[in-house]
């Protein structure tokens, strides 16, 4: 698919200019390798980290150390990568020790984001381990005599045909893997795998269920002190005055650190730091700037009147296509939404002998190191960022900001490790939000009821404001220092991944298509990467509108999708989800008829994430309470095609979790914000789905062992939101186009016309 990308600036495009910075988040992966000759392209992250020894070390003690720049946050990636390495090497899963994202030890693989870890790190490890295996066998052949091709390996023991044997552990040398990968040794083919494709138990799980040290929060260093940061009541506020003497007199307070409008208390004990924070919040006097209106304030108007950068994302024309005889159009919106990690962000930093070590649950330790070093005016070589797991993050939450808080405080109290724990309201009020979005979709139908023209126009704030740019500092505290630093200009992630326009290009074979975006880099609230970026909202709009168009054409939603879709893998997941659910055309729901107090209905949604990761279709069944306006998702079915499945249960876990999280987004979640600031401060202000509201979920993994593995972590969210919207329409005969589907909106939609 070729995306026609051009700027068609109208209105007042910001002076910063879109041409200045390119693809911040992905720059390290796309940059050509250094050197005068262009080196051969290597698969996955091997291309940017070309030494075999950067990926694995075969140890004389019978273990294998595997290095990855990707981080574990509960998606099971460290286990899946260990599974890959063990399989390609022919050693037991337990022999693999994983070392994950550490700027002093592991390859730089950018961010653990975008459902790319299996595609990038997994691919690199398959090739690196296959090549290492061949080198170990060559060394064994030299020792045993005979040809390497005749040797057999089982759990690292190498046997020759005559019965002589040795082991990896005996033939390995320090120097063996210290050479550039060639990727000329093919990894195992489908059918040769022994561990890939098996449901091996995750290695991170036993400590999590028994109180073992499993999280950054469990890190306790000798002499460690506890800090809390006193954040402003509203973004861009200045600290006018603070009685630091009163704070310093409180029990356990070691230091009150203030730099401009950044202020923190550092204490011997954690509860003392919390008490000091409460006092700080009472004593501090802040300016009270008003928050400007946001896109979300324009949802009741036909078109947002905001400053935008406008471009055509994609355009396709088919001159011979049938003429449209009927046009329809609809607008969809999505509120600001939150990552809302169960554990607020945490970090530990230690400034010792000129070396700053930061333990963080950031998704990108190298990018974080780069921004910390730039902010502090020190060399990146003097900063080490080490990943440790935190609570699930689902994107760019407060992790990096907490790490910089800890770094600033460690520099103020050299020699003592400083632990910063954000409070619940810190996370709700200061995490970067998932952008509010607006999508206007239109279609032209031919005389025979097929879509010939497709238009999709979207409005969005940034979805990528992580650290790691070539300029600026994307760390919260840096903007509040006495000498404030500026954030990087937030460039939208370009296609083919897309940011605000992720999944805005439909996978359907519409003859004429035009996708516009109105990007708004100047956001009153900080927005950044929340799981799927723009894809959840775009797929919600596309797939809702597919049902609206199918209804206009008098077609069944499944049949209508299939008639516009040639991609066989896409068709298969749609057919499979429909089959599982017992899909019956013409009998999808009550349609707002009947006298029962509840309406019931079913709907479908589909997408291929980013148009190049996993395929996923979801059928949802909903119950609508006509009196209360409460929508419940009672059951959901899905089918997912992720190519070669490394760990099928890991895929099921990601997809079912994604479906439930998306049901929560769709039914319940919206940031509360007004001119005086963010009003979402506790779970009372931001309800998420609870046990009694969670649907029964079934997931079918379509196995394609001969195909490349495809990322799944974000595959289900868009299809699920749309499936719920379509099920609501089937149930009630009315349509909800604004996420979330709160009871008052439902009641308004059900009101007599």
């Amino acid at each position, binding site marked *: 698919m070729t995306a026609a990308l051009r700027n068609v600036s109208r209105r007042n495009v910001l002076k910063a200019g879109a041409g200045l910075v390119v693809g911040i988040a992905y720059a390290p992966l796309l940059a050509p390798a250094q050197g005068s000759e262009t080196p051969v392209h290597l698969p996955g992250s091997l291309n940017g980290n070309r030494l075999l020894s950067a990926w694995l070390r075969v140890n004389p003690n019978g273990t294998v150390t595997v290095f990855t720049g990707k981080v574990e946050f*509960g998606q099971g990636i460290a286990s899946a990568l260990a599974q890959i390495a063990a399989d390609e090497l022919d050693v037991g899963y337990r022999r693999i020790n994983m070392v994950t994202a550490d700027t002093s030890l592991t390859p730089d693989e950018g961010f653990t984001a975008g459902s790319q870890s299996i595609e990038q790190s997994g691919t690199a490890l398959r090739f690196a381990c296959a090549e290492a295996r061949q080198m170990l066998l060559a060394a064994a052949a030299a020792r045993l005599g005979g040809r390497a091709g005749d040797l057999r390996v089982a759990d690292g023991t190498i046997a020759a045909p005559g019965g002589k044997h040795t082991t990896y552990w005996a033939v390995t040398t320090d120097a063996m893997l210290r050479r550039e990968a060639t990727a000329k040794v093919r990894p195992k083919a489908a059918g040769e795998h022994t561990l890939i494709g098996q449901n091996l138990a995750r290695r991170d799980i036993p400590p999590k269920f028994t109180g073992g040290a499993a999280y950054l929060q469990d890190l306790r260093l000798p002499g460690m002190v506890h800090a809390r940061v006193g954040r402003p009541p509203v973004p861009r506020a200045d600290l006018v005055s603070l009685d630091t003497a009163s704070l310093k007199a409180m029990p356990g307070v070691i230091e009150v650190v203030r730099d401009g409008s950044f202020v923190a208390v550092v204490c011997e004990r954690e509860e003392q730091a919390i008490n000091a924070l409460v006092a700080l919040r009472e004593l501090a006097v802040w300016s009270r700037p008003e928050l400007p209106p946001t896109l979300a304030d324009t949802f009741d108007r036909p078109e947002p009147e905001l400053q935008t950068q406008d471009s055509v994302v994609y355009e396709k024309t088919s001159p011979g296509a049938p003429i449209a005889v009927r046009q329809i159009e609809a607008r969809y919106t999505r509120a600001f939404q939150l990552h809302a990690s169960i554990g607020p962000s945490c970090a530990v930093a230690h400034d010792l002998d000129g070396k700053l070590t930061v333990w963080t649950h950031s998704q990108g330790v190298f990018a974080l190191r780069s921004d910390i070093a730039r902010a502090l005016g020190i060399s990146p070589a003097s900063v080490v960022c080490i990943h440790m797991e935190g609570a699930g993050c689902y994107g760019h939450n407060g992790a990096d900001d907490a790490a910089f808080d800890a770094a600033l405080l460690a520099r103020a109290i050299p020699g003592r490790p400083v632990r910063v724990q954000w409070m619940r309201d810190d996370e709700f009020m200061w995490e970067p939000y998932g952008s509010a979005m607006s999508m206007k979709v239109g279609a032209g139908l031919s005389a025979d009821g097929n879509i010939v023209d497709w238009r999709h126009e979207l409005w969005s704030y940034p979805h990528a404001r992580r650290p790691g740019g070539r300029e600026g500092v994307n760390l919260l505290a840096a903007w509040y220092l006495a000498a404030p630093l500026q954030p990087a200009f937030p460039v939208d992630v370009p296609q083919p991944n897309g940011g605000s326009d992720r999944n805005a290009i439909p996978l359907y074979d519409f003859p004429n298509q035009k996708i516009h975006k109105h990007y708004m880099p100047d956001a009153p609230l900080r927005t950044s990467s929340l799981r799927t970026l723009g894809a959840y909202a775009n797929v919600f709009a596309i797939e809702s509108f597919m049902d609206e168009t199918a209804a206009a054409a008098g077609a069944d939603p499944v049949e209508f999708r299939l008639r516009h879709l040639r991609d066989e893998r896409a068709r298969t997941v749609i057919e499979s989800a429909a089959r599982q659910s017992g899909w019956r055309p013409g009998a999808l729901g009550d349609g707002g008829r009947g006298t029962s107090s509840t309406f019931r209905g079913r709907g479908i949604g589909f997408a291929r994430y980013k148009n190049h990761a996993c395929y996923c279709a979801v059928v949802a069944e909903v119950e609508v309470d006509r009196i209360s306006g409460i929508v419940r998702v009672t059951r959901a079915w899905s089918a997912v095609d992720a190519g070669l499945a490394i760990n099928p249960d890991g895929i099921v876990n990601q997809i079912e*979790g994604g479906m439930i999280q998306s049901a929560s987004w769709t039914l319940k979640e919206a940031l509360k914000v007004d001119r005086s600031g963010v009003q979402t401060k506790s779970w009372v202000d931001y309800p998420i789905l609870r046990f009694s509201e969670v649907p029964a979920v079934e997931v079918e993994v379509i196995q394609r062992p001969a195909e490349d593995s495809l990322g799944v972590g974000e595959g289900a969210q868009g299809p699920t939101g749309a499936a719920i919207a379509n099920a609501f329409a089937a149930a009630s005969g009315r349509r909800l186009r604004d996420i979330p589907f709160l009871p008052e909106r439902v009641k308004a939609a059900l009101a007599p016309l």
Partner: protein
Amino acid sequence: MPAVFTLRVNGTARSVRAEPATPLLYVLRNDLKLNGAKFGCGQSQCGACSVLIDGMERRSCVYPVGAVGKGAITTIEGLGTPQQPNALQRAFIHEQACQCGYCSNGMIMAAQALLARNPKPSESEVKQALEGHLCRCGAHNRIVRAVLRASKGALP
């Protein structure tokens, strides 16, 4: 003023010096170095910090250490170890019942209290017992399956 408290934690007497109003969570985590109870909200809203006191589920993030008295505290460390998990923990492992696992402590402690008072709960009784516990990853159905599995003794 700080005082010395002798707490009964997982069957062992442990002495700590703290302000009586200190939430039990920080004493468990920082003084006794127990990782199980987690800081999630500090407001008794999410359940990640749950422990048992005399068999009742309590939110340690708001439970003052001075109010524990002679109460017997059980944390998740008192149920089993990574090497020897108890039946409920084994059932959670068998079902791979988490993604990030940050809420798991509260889920397991609430389920332990439920199974003690109702060894054969129905699915809806399990959900009811966990209703006050938040999971953000969407592992709810696995968690319910794990509790039911433990209640049925259906372990490998």
